[in-house]
């Protein structure tokens, strides 16, 4: 008997402990490391001085310059603002495109839904880098899409000069929406497919046209999915580096690129780390409030 009790206790600890251990190793320790770098002194040519050395603690405030810049309206502020702007627009576009998609998936015949779901996840089978490069090739001034589009629009007399699809906000948003849309569709699909058909029937029965039913019943009931999808797209987009780097232009500066610049061009690791921590604070703190609100709302619906 006693042995059994011990066994279950160990089992329980293991089940609860394993994820915590993972989070500790993969999230908390790197985060603390980053935090320590962000308050250390830089070394010319790359690297940093440890904050504990020669038997004493040495700190450097790398946050004040960032704050100053943000207050005065320098590069960091515009990079932060444009990051939030592009991430926000991406999330909205994903919602606009993803919602109808998820809706029809959820209402498709039961046996077809796994196939549709597979189509949504299919892009994951190809590395994101390759997909982004493909967009680059297609949208290039000499790429097939740009030339065909320019040619036909010119022939119709709508434009006189060649279209430029690459390295501007269009290509940037196209790339981000393309890469992140599955993260919007999946949570939306999961909430939409759980909505009882009888709510739609009840709305129709009470005289609501299909359009009215959509906005008065379907959208409110899928609120949790909308919020989850928006967060899943918005958060990684704020700090996105690869897509702005490959598809963005000079006028689409995002914080990820600025940060990379600080690391690799200016070799200022501590300042770059401070920028990274700032992004986390910028994104995570509002999200925590949102989550709290969402939990309250969820409790109400249940």
């Amino acid at each position, binding site marked *: 008997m006693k042995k059994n009790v011990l066994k279950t206790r160990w089992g329980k600890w293991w089940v609860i402990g394993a994820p915590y251990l993972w989070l500790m190793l993969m999230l908390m320790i790197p985060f603390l490391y980053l935090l320590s770098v962000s308050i250390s002194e830089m070394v010319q040519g790359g690297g940093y001085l440890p904050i504990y050395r020669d038997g004493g603690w040495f700190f450097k405030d790398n946050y004040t310059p960032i704050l100053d810049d943000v207050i005065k309206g320098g590069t960091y502020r515009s990079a932060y603002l444009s990051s939030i702007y592009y991430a926000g627009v991406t999330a909205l576009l994903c919602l606009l495109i993803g919602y109808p998609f998820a809706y029809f998936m959820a209402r498709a015949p039961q046996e077809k839904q796994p196939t549709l779901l597979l189509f949504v996840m299919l892009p994951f089978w190809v590395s994101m880098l390759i997909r982004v490069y493909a967009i680059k090739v297609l949208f290039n001034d000499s790429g097939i899409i740009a030339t065909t589009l320019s040619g036909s629009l010119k022939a119709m007399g709508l434009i006189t000069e060649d279209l430029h699809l690459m390295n501007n906000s269009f290509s940037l948003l196209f790339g981000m929406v393309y890469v992140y849309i599955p993260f919007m569709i999946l949570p939306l699909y999961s909430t939409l497919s759980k909505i009882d058909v009888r709510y739609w*029937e009840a709305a*129709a029965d009470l005289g*609501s046209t299909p359009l009215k039913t959509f906005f008065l019943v379907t959208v409110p009931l899928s609120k949790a999915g909308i919020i989850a999808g928006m967060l899943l797209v918005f958060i990684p987009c704020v700090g996105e580096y690869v897509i702005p780097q490959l598809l963005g232009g000079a006028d689409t500066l995002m914080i990820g690129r600025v940060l990379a610049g600080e690391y690799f061009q200016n070799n200022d690791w501590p300042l770059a780390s401070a920028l990274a921590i700032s992004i986390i604070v910028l994104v995570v703190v509002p999200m925590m409030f949102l989550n709290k609100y969402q939990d309250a709302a969820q409790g*109400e*619906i249940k």
Partner: protein
Amino acid sequence: MAEHIPSADNDAPYLSIQNVVKKFGDHAAVNNVSIDIAKGEIFALLGSSGCGKSTLLRMLAGFELPTSGKILLKGEDISKIPPYERPINMMFQSYALFPHLNVWDNIAFGLRREKIAKAEIAQRVDDVLKLTQLTKFAKRKPHQLSGGQQQRVALARSLVKQPNLLLLDEPLGALDKKLREETQIELVNIIEKVGVTCVMVTHDQEEAMTMASRIAVMSNGQLLQVGSPSEVYETPRTEFVADFIGNVNLFKGGEIVVDEPTRAEIQTEDALHILPRGMAGEKGMKYSVAIRPEKMELSKTAPNQRGNQCQGEVTEVIYFGSDTIYHVRLNGTGRVLKVQYENSERYAGERFTWGDQVYVFWPPTAIVPVAPSY
């Protein structure tokens, strides 16, 4: 409950279902159903699951289109009108109350879809809240209500639009037994107060009997018998109907052996059934006999009558408090008859006991000849 006899005979029927067929692939869920329903009736479609009753109801609501046939409401064919344009409201099985809206908004939902002034909406919602005794729950969300309260909200929501036809889909199915009995009466009182014509679907024969003014027993997409609750109970026309509504003892495989204008006799394996009237059949016709358990009696000595009796052994005594049911295994065929006694006196349930040799007998009026099912 079923005192109000519909006045269907004066003019055209209020709701007329004409030759309605609904096929899903090859399977006919509703197979050529025709029925007229009068204004103010509470009409119950009764059947086991999969008999097509829900499909028929959904065609009335507009969620399914009939494959063929017509549905006329006040003389107008509504079978192709979309549900949101029909003057018909439905109370859904397990209610389908909108979880994101409170009681008041749930009830006002339907009114807001029409061009009705705000003040009138408020007035009508408040009226129906009063009618269903929900006024103090107006601001609650559905999940904060008990099952019975949710049921009343669903009723209020479907009544507030003053529909020409009210549909009830298993109206009490989600309630427990005790609450169901109270709610049945309450529900009928409200429906009668409003005076709305009502079609309900249920698999619970008790629910249908207590609430409806007329019952249609449905099986395999067809109406087997339509009539008042007492008609369907006391004179079932087929074995299926007799068996479906209440308890019954079926003497199967009988044959008419005597058929005179004032007297008929049906011989089954276990007994000779003697009726004091002629039958609409001829000698040699196959008939089964249905007899309700409460119309049979037991005796230890042979009853002084010809026919209408058989002999057996008491194998079970089932005591329900208000009644006792005796199972009697017949000596001849080993079939088991159920005989129900009302315990109008205390400890009356101990009349007979296990192993007693008894005679089962019944009055000629208890005999219901039914068409055999094949």
